[in-house]
């Protein structure tokens, strides 16, 4: 049972169901949002750049969490669906569509492609489904590399003009920060809403007991497809934002390795939790950043270390972190955070 602050009673079902329950929490939420959007005016470009990358990752990971965490369906193709979003955005912008319109369209296009690759979930589960989604990861980047190179640019890829809004050109980390974080906020809220209403319960029901769900009126297949659609829709939005962030996109940016990293972020953050994707994406990206900063320092301190080893520092650290999480905290950072919160509420009567 969730512990609440003293004096926080349920006066109505609406209140019981609300996420933000009292004035203090409203205050904190508003302060947080102001802080979030004021950040680019204070922090330096490099920090903002990292936050942008974290934001894009959060969106992709929230999507994967809907599929993996809530619905219990594995996907090894999240990066591929991001590619669909990124290429849709780049092609649309090239055709003269405003990026702001291209962004939601890219999400929908990716969603539909995701739905297509979710079709095997009608018949297969678990490991075999993972293999089927792997085919998305094989086919999609291949498609953008080899098919219609006049449209998709082949190996070198596509370059997208930075989006504009009146006089503002979104070509610096600080300017891109706003559309990215705004999308993150919308995506986080939408995912939380889905999780706490009819659709979310149906997805979790299927995860926990698919046969019982069916017998109790929840059509398994159509809900699995919805989960695939939503998951890829999130990936598509992340992909379109990535196209803005990276300016030039090419098929190699959306490899299987990237998909695996997203899976890792879901696990590190905590599957099936609303907070998990945020914590997971932030943790892994910060870890990556730290290892990047650390590599030159290490090579100075220990010149005898091989350059190859230093280059692999990121993946190695990620691998070790993932392993430690799987062994010691399989429920991820979100669960840890819940424990800390509960302990804080019970202070000073800990234990």
């Amino acid at each position, binding site marked *: 049972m969730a512990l609440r602050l003293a004096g926080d009673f349920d006066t109505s079902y609406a209140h019981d169901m609300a996420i933000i329950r009292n004035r203090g929490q409203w205050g904190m939420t508003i302060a947080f949002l102001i802080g979030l959007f004021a950040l680019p005016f204070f922090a330096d470009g490099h920090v903002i750049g990292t936050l942008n990358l974290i934001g894009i990752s959060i969106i992709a990971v929230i999507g994967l969490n809907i599929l993996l965490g809530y619905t219990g369906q594995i996907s090894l193709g999240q990066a591929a669906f991001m590619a669909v979003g990124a290429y849709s955005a780049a092609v649309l912008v090239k055709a003269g569509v405003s990026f702001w319109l291209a962004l939601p369209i890219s999400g929908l296009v990716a969603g539909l492609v995701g739905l297509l690759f979710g079709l095997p979930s009608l018949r297969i589960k678990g490991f075999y489904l993972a293999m089927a989604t792997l085919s998305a990861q094989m086919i999609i980047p291949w498609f953008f590399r080899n098919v219609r190179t006049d449209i998709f640019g082949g190996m070198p890829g596509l370059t997208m003009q930075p989006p504009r809004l009146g006089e503002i050109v979104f070509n610096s980390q600080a300017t891109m920060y706003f559309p990215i974080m705004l999308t993150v906020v919308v995506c986080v809220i939408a995912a939380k809403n889905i999780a706490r209403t009819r659709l979310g319960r149906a997805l979790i*029901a299927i995860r926990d007991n698919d046969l019982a769900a069916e017998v109790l009126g929840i059509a398994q297949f159509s809900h699995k497809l919805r989960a695939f659609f939503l998951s890829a829709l999130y990936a598509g939005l992340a992909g379109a934002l990535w196209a803005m962030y990276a300016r030039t996109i090419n098929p190699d940016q959306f490899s299987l390795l990237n998909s695996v990293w997203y899976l890792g972020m879901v696990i590190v953050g905590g599957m099936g939790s609303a907070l998990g994707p945020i914590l997971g994406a932030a943790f892994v990206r910060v870890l990556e950043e730290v290892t990047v900063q650390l590599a030159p320092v290490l090579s100075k301190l220990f010149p005898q270390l091989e350059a190859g080893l230093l280059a692999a520092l990121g993946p190695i650290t990620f691998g070790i972190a993932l392993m430690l999480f799987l062994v010691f905290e399989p429920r991820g950072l979100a669960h840890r955070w819940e424990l800390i919160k509960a302990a804080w509420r019970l202070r000073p009567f800990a234990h």
Partner: protein
Amino acid sequence: MPSSTSTHAPLLQAIDLHLFFGGLSALVSVSFDIRPGEILALIGPNGAGKTSALNCLNGFYRPQRGKILFDGHDLTHTPTHVIPRLGIARTFQNIALYTGMTALDNLMAARHIHMRQSMWASALYFGPAHREEIAHRRVIEEIIDFLEMEHIRKAIVGALPYGLRKRVELGRALALEPKLLLLDEPMAGMNVEEKEDMARFILDIHERRGMTILLVEHDMGLVMDIAHRVVVLDFGVKIAEGTPDEIKSNPAVIKAYLGETVNSEQSTVNSQQ
């Protein structure tokens, strides 16, 4: 409240059901009616085919032969997930809850068929989805009160003790607001006190909510107490049907139960073979 009169047309008719698993016949030409407003007990020794019969009724198994008519619908080819919409709900012999959810959410999940909010309305939440959630929360809270589970409302059901999980499962089936409730051994594995609670709930559901109930149960004393009629299966064959009194003295039933440890009345039957 409807009473068990035989003048009504049956709510459900199972006609000539045959179900095989490879060479094994789980049901052989089984036919029975469920009348509106009655508590019908389905009994029989282990492996007699009781659960298989229930599984056929809610479309979980498809009989190779036979027909199931329910409230004007032919269920034989109705998709499994549509059957609860027509008004059949059930509990499972080996509890099948959504283990990662709270008790409240398990019940809310069962309201699925009565809700209409779309994926987009869910994501937006404010407006229609919010109103719908609250309306259905009210329905659920009534069931929670009725089953005396206020204290476990927000507990994750996977961590609840066995007896309470059985109760949550009953609540989930009620949340579907079915016309026909199928209960597969709702009291198995419970202690005496829990059994009494459960029997009280079942009788209350029948009386206050006017629900028709098909009950599979091994506790013969209990079956004889609360059922209006009894159908007996043995090795997939229906060997008897009648009022509890008729069943108690039916020679075929007595024979089927020989060698089994039978409760109460049945245990007085002499054993000869």
